[in-house]
């Protein structure tokens, strides 16, 4: 890590713009009625290697935006470039979807095969990759999510958190540059939530894969590089977790609330307790208090 060359390279990767949107607008068309405006002028740049969390109330446009990042949806107007390619060109879609893979909320809707190994190999088989290479990549992807031991297991007998890890491995086997996660922990129990968060953070750090994570759980935003808050199809706030969660009142006005510890610290500060700003987790508060 101390090698100046690798250090600089790391910085060079971070400076790269992976996804860039300009005045992105999207309308859902409805029969015989006015269209619904889901996204209304989004200007956002996502840098390669970044861990970006998107929060916002139900219906604010999180899922719609995420679906633009791998060309599942294309803008009604405005532009989006993914890895310098426009999603407006249909011939780019195939490439873009290999570069940016999506994991959805419900793990049961994403599993297609009868063993973990086959499930992770599914995408690669469709690309016509040689069997030897597939085997290598499946093994590598399962190792990244800590599921090597389960390669022969039946996916439907795994826990929810393990199923999500298998879904993530299926994307990783495609060697993407970016992982899109749409409320990946919404249906998981507390341990499953923690496990998926830990694995995704590790992948971001060690494999330098860009992560864009949409969630309703503010605890999952506290370690992000950057947080984007959506409200009614627009970017309402943008900044580091410390900046975003510094003032819960602003969040409350957007029908959101901060992580429990951030809310507590804010109340204690207003009651005159001398706590430094920027405390978001139990660990941070404990080390300040004792």
């Amino acid at each position, binding site marked *: 890590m101390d090698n100046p060359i690798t250090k600089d390279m790391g910085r060079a990767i971070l400076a790269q713009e992976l996804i860039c949107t300009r005045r992105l607008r999207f309308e859902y068309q409805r029969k015989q009625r006015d269209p619904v405006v889901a996204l209304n002028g989004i200007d956002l740049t996502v840098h390669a290697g970044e861990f970006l969390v998107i929060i916002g109330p139900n219906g604010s446009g999180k899922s719609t935006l995420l679906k633009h990042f791998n060309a599942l949806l294309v803008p009604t107007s405005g532009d989006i470039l993914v890895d310098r390619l426009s999603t407006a060109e249909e011939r780019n879609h195939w490439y873009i979807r290999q570069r940016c893979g999506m994991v959805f909320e419900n793990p049961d809707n994403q599993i297609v095969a009868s063993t973990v190994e086959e499930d992770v190999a599914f995408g690669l088989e469709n690309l016509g990759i040689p069997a030897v290479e597939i085997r290598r990549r499946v093994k590598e992807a399962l190792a990244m999510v800590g599921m090597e031991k389960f390669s022969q297991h039946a996916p439907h007998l795994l826990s929810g958190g393990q199923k999500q890890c298998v879904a993530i491995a299926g994307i990783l086997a495609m060697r993407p540059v970016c992982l899109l996660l749409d409320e990946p922990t919404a*249906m998981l129990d507390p341990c499953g939530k923690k496990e998926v968060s830990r694995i995704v953070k590790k992948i971001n750090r060690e494999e330098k894969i860009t992560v864009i994570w949409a969630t309703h759980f503010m605890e999952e935003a506290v370690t992000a590089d950057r947080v984007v808050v959506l409200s009614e199809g627009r970017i309402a706030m943008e900044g580091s977790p410390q900046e975003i969660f510094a003032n819960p009142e602003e969040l409350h006005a957007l029908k959101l*609330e901060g992580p429990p510890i951030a809310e507590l610290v804010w109340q204690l500060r207003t009651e005159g*307790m001398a706590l430094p700003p920027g405390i978001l987790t139990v660990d941070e508060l404990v080390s300040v208090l004792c």
Partner: protein
Amino acid sequence: MLIEVLDLSFVYMPGTPFEVKALRNVNMKIKSGQFVGIIGQTGSGKSTLIQHFNGLLQPSEGKVLVDGKEILRNSLALRYLRRRIVLLFQYPEHQLFEETVYEDIALGPKNLGLSGKEVDKRVWDAMRMVELDFSKYKDRPLFDLSGGEMRRVAIAGVLAMQPEVLILDEPAAGMDPEGRRAILGQIRRIHKEKGLTLILVSHNMDEVSRLADSLFVMYEGEIVLSGSPAVIFGGYSRLEQYGLTLPTMTELMHRLKERGCSVRTDVFTASEVRQELLALSRKGDCKSV
């Protein structure tokens, strides 16, 4: 209404290679008017258990008694029982099928053969409980509603049956913070105002610890712990072994105590913790003053 579970065991697909023992010797008692929380990791048997409370599943061994009477297969009493003990599944908005809000909520009461006036009254009252304005929402088409509004219509639909026991499986799953807060506030009010028994299945320890007065912890088909939230979350080393976590505020207090601060560990809400910490800082018992 008293629900008693005696030595209940349940096996899925018995006698096949896929046989799974989902419940093992479960014993529990739920008294009338209680607010009970059932917690446990995925696959611990929560959903299997609650489906026994109104006879959707029948025990492989043991029995379930309601007011002292055993729930039996195919009995007439079972039909009557399901009006009194109502179970709302996860994501209940997927089960709405009428055209308008009113029609969907009225479906149950109409099937009970009630008069139009009585149905009207029940729909109005159910909508009031979930904070949907009657005149504004009654004629709205269901497909026009947001997910959160549809969830509330689904809850109103079961309230209109005027059950004595309401079983909710993750009623706030997938909702934003404000939506969660609203739904849980409504559930608390329903319990208080209607005096019905509430059984809540949840993965959210912060919420369940604040709502329920009694908790059952399930692990691999067994009830491994039971008691008040204060009792359950007091002994936290055991909880991790069952795949659960502490409510955030309780975790904070445990961690402070480990570091030698004299704080209570049986607190769950931010306001209780705030009082504790302010008292602590007044005593000068922590670094920050």
